[in-house]
């Protein structure tokens, strides 16, 4: 499984549509999740970064906050291993775990979930 496929599968477990950050359809309806990642090397000494962005069209903070918390709780304490070609993508909660990001459109609620990663391959 490629890195993108592994992350798509992981983020598909949260009951909202998932797109890579650079491949969001023009007619995509909120809520949805976009993700982006960089690709690192084993034992490079620096962590790789994965971000999951949540997009909600709502006046309430409750739903987007709950979804961000759901993702954070799924990753849990310690590391979670995602199987990829050649080994594993080891992920853990980033710092901060998630945050609210202001949007020019007041109807949009945007949350960014930060995930740290190490490529074990």
């Amino acid at each position, binding site marked *: 499984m490629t890195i993108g496929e592994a992350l798509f599968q992981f983020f598909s477990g949260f009951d909202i549509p998932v797109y890579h950050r650079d491949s969001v359809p023009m007619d995509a309806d909120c809520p949805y999740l976009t993700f982006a990642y960089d690709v690192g090397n*084993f034992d490079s000494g620096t962590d790789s970064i994965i971000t999951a962005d949540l997009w909600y069209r709502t006046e309430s903070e409750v739903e987007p906050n709950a979804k961000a918390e759901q993702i954070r709780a799924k990753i849990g304490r*310690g*590391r979670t*291993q995602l199987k990829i070609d*050649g*080994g*594993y993508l*080891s992920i853990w909660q980033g710092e901060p775990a998630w945050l609210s990001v202001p949007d020019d459109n007041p109807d949009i609620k945007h949350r960014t979930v930060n995930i740290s990663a190490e490529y*074990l*391959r």
Partner: protein
Amino acid sequence: MGKFSVIPTDTFDQLQMDAGVLLNTFNPSSPGEIADEHFICATTGGINATCIPTYSDMGADVDNCPVNTKELKHLDGWDCKLSFTALSATPSAIRMALGAADIEASSGKITPRKDLKQSDFDDSIWWVGDKTNGGMVAIELKNALSTGGFSLQTTKNGKGQVSVEITGHVSLSDQSVVPMVFYSSDPAPAG
């Protein structure tokens, strides 16, 4: 890439990940969910497990005998320890660090004792950790007693930390049993 710049194909399946947990009981043949009461304490900075042999060179004073002659090497014993920094400040965690001590449950008073009792030894203390492939690594320390004493370090705006060193002991009832046992297993096949 050089011919010898390679790694075993199962390298990334067999990595031990994260700090693991300290437990007062564990069954390595059926490692299910961990009950809350099985945790010994929360820790910081991971756990250090050592099992160091002591050898004598019986040929050391033999004229003309080379150093480290294998037929004359004698295994004297093993020094088995678990060392960690505990964050828990429960009476049981404090008593564990002290070793020879008593808890007065009604008041939460913990009193170090002048004499050591056999009941101060824990039959087993376990460290259990994850492997990347979903398996586990476990270490059992037998007849465990804290031999490093109690040492608390507090910091402004921080969490109090207690340094603990626990030593495993041999029992007279079975003197051939080394007080540390290791387990490494892969997850059960799916389906």
